C-alpha cells in the first residue's frame, strides 16, 4: 500500500507566552485505504494534528507530506490547490452554507478545482445518493436534521474522490443513534476504498476502527492496528 500522508517529527508551537507546544514531535504514516481514529483528551493536540495534516496550518518544524507532496515545498496558493484536489474535510459543525440546497452544498466540494457547476452537480447527485440522501437534493440546509446535515458534509468531502478525508469530531454535535449512522457511513466509505482519518474523543467509536492512535500532550502514546472481525 502506498503512503498518502506522512508526518515526520512534526512539531507545532503556538507563539504564546509561554509557548504552547500542541504537537511535540509526531511521526506517523497513513496508507491508502486506511481508516484511522485519532483519540485523546481535549488539549492533547488532536485538532492541531488534523489541521497540520490538512495543510490548513504549517508545522513549526518537521516534515508533512500529503498525496506525495511535501508541504514545505509548496506555496500557500499551492497548498490551497492541494486541498482542493486531494483533501476532503468533515467538521464537527458541518459548515454548510445556509440558504443553499443540499445539492449545491455538496457541489461546492469541487468549487475550487475550476470544474463547471453542471458537472459538479452531476457528481454531487451520486455523492448524495452514496450517503443515502438522494431524496433530499433540493432541501435547503435549514430543512435538514443534524444527521442529514453531516451526511451532506460527508458527501461534499468525498466529492471527486479525494486522496484522503479528514474528519474532525464528525459526531460531536449528534446524538448517539445518529452518530452510529455516521460512523457506519464512514466504515462503508472506507470499505469502498476511501482513506479516512477521524479525530474523536469518543473511545467507543475509536475502538471500532481498524487503527487507533492515542495522543497525549502532543505526542503519540499508542498506535495500534487491529484485526477487526
Amino acid at each position, binding site marked *: 500500500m502506498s503512503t498518502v500522508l506522512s508526518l515526520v517529527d512534526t512539531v507545532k508551537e503556538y507563539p504564546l507566552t509561554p509557548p504552547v507546544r500542541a504537537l511535540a514531535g509526531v511521526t506517523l504514516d497513513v496508507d491508502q485505504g486506511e481508516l484511522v481514529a485519532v483519540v485523546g483528551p481535549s488539549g492533547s493536540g488532536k485538532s492541531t494534528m488534523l*489541521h497540520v495534516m*490538512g495543510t*490548513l*496550518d504549517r508545522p513549526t518544524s518537521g516534515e508533512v507530506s500529503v498525496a506525495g*507532496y*511535501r508541504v514545505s*515545498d*509548496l506555496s*500557500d*496558493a*499551492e497548498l*490551497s*490547490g*492541494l*486541498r*482542493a*484536489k486531494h*483533501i476532503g*474535510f468533515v*467538521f464537527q*459543525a458541518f*459548515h454548510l*452554507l*445556509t*440558504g*443553499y440546497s443540499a445539492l449545491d452544498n455538496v457541489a*461546492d*466540494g469541487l*468549487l*475550487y*478545482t*475550476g*470544474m*463547471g*457547476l453542471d458537472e459538479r452537480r452531476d457528481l454531487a447527485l451520486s455523492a448524495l445518493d452514496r450517503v443515502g440522501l438522494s431524496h433530499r437534493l433540493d432541501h435547503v440546509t435549514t430543512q435538514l436534521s443534524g444527521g442529514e446535515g453531516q451526511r451532506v458534509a460527508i458527501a461534499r468531502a468525498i466529492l471527486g474522490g479525494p486522496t484522503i478525508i479528514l474528519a474532525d469530531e464528525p459526531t460531536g454535535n449528534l446524538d448517539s443513534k445518529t452518530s452510529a449512522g455516521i460512523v457506519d457511513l464512514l466504515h462503508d466509505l472506507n470499505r469502498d476504498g476511501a482513506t479516512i482519518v477521524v479525530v474523536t474523543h469518543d473511545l467507543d467509536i475509536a475502538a471500532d476502527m481498524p487503527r487507533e492512535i492515542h495522543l497525549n500532550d502532543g505526542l503519540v502514546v499508542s498506535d495500534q492496528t487491529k484485526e477487526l472481525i
Partner: protein
Amino acid sequence: MANGQLQSELHPSDLARTATVGARTRPLRAALSALGIMIGIGAMVAVLGLSESSKSELLSQLERLGTNLLTVTAGAGIGRGEAVLPEESVDMVGRIGPVESTAYVVDVAANAYRTDLIPEAQTGGIAVMATALNLLDTIGGTVAEGVFLDEATSEFPTVVLGAVTADRLGIDSLEGSPMIWVGNEWFTVVGILDTLDLHPNLDRSVLIGEAVAGSLLDSENPPSTIYVRAQPEDVVAVANVLPATVNPEFPDQVNVTRPTDTLEAQEAADDTLTGLFLGLGAVALLVGGVGIANVMVISVLERRSEIGLRRALGATRRHITYQFLGESMLLAGAGGLAGVLLGALVTAAWASYQGWDTLVPVVAIVGGIVAALAIGAIAGLYPALRAARLSPTEALRA
C-alpha cells in the same frame, strides 16, 4: 517538485455565484446597504437629467422665439430729464440693412377699467398702449381669441387684451362683444393674446390703435419701446449700431436688450443650483459607500466559519478577496443601477409634468453605474483583504 497541477481555480461563473452568497443569505441587509448608493446615484442622475431636460426645453424655446429679437427703450438721461426715443427713430431703425422688421408701442396716458363704475384709483396695474399693427408678427406673438388690430379696427375704439389683462378684467371669451372703459370711452374687445414668453409688460397691457389713441385719447407720444427683428447672424452688429441710429445726438440714452438673454441668465442661475444638488448627491453617495464598507466589515466577522470552510475546500486568499470585493461591488452596483432607474424615473415624471422632453444624459447613466462600482470596490477592499488575511484554522474555530 513540479506543482503546476496544484492550482486552485474558480470558474468565472462560480466567482460571480460566490459574490452573491451574502445577498442571498441576508437579502434585507443587502437591500438596505444598497439603498444609500441608490439614493446618491438617483439624486445625481435626476439632477443631471432635469438640468439637461430643462436646457433642451430652453433651446427649443429659444428656437421658437428666435434669439434675433432686440428691444429698444429709452434710458435715463443724466441731467436732461426723462429720456425719450425720437419720433423718427422707428423709420431710421427700419433702414438698417440686416433688420427684417420693426414694430413699436407707445405709452398712452390713460387707464383701462372693466366698467365706468370702477373707482379711478383701481387701475389693476394695466397699462394702455398704442401699437403698430405689425407688432404681433415682429415679436412672434399669437392671438388666443378673436383677431389683432388691423387697418380698419385700429381707427375705431377697439382693443386687444394681453393675457394677464384679460384675466384681471375677467374676460375669457369674446362672446357678447365685451366692452371695457379706457380713458373716458367704451372700447370693444376684439382679441385676447396668448401669453408672450419674453414680454410680460405686453401681457399686462391693453393695446389700441394709434389713430384712436390720437383722436379719442389725445395722445401723441413718441415710441416707448421699439421691437427689432434682425437677421440672426447680424444680431450683435445691429445691436451695436442701434443706439446711434435711434438717437444720434445722445446714443447713451438708448437701452438695447435681447429678451432671450434673460432666459439664458435664468438657466445659468439654475446651473448653480444643479451644482449644489450634485454636491448633495455626492455626499449621499459617500455616506452610502461608508454604509457598504460597514456592512462588509460586519459580514466578514460573521462569516468567518464560511471563510474557513472555503479555505479548507481549496480557496486561495485571492479567491476570498475576490469574493468579498465582488460582493461589495455587487451591492453598490445594484444600488447604482436602481439609482439610475430612480433618477430617470424622477426626470421623466417631472419633465412630463412640465411638458418638457425627457432627456437623461448617457454620461449620467454610465457615470452613475461606474461611480457606484468604484465606490463598491473602494468600500469592499479593506474588508475583503481582512477576510483573506484570516488564517484558515482561526476562521474554522469561529
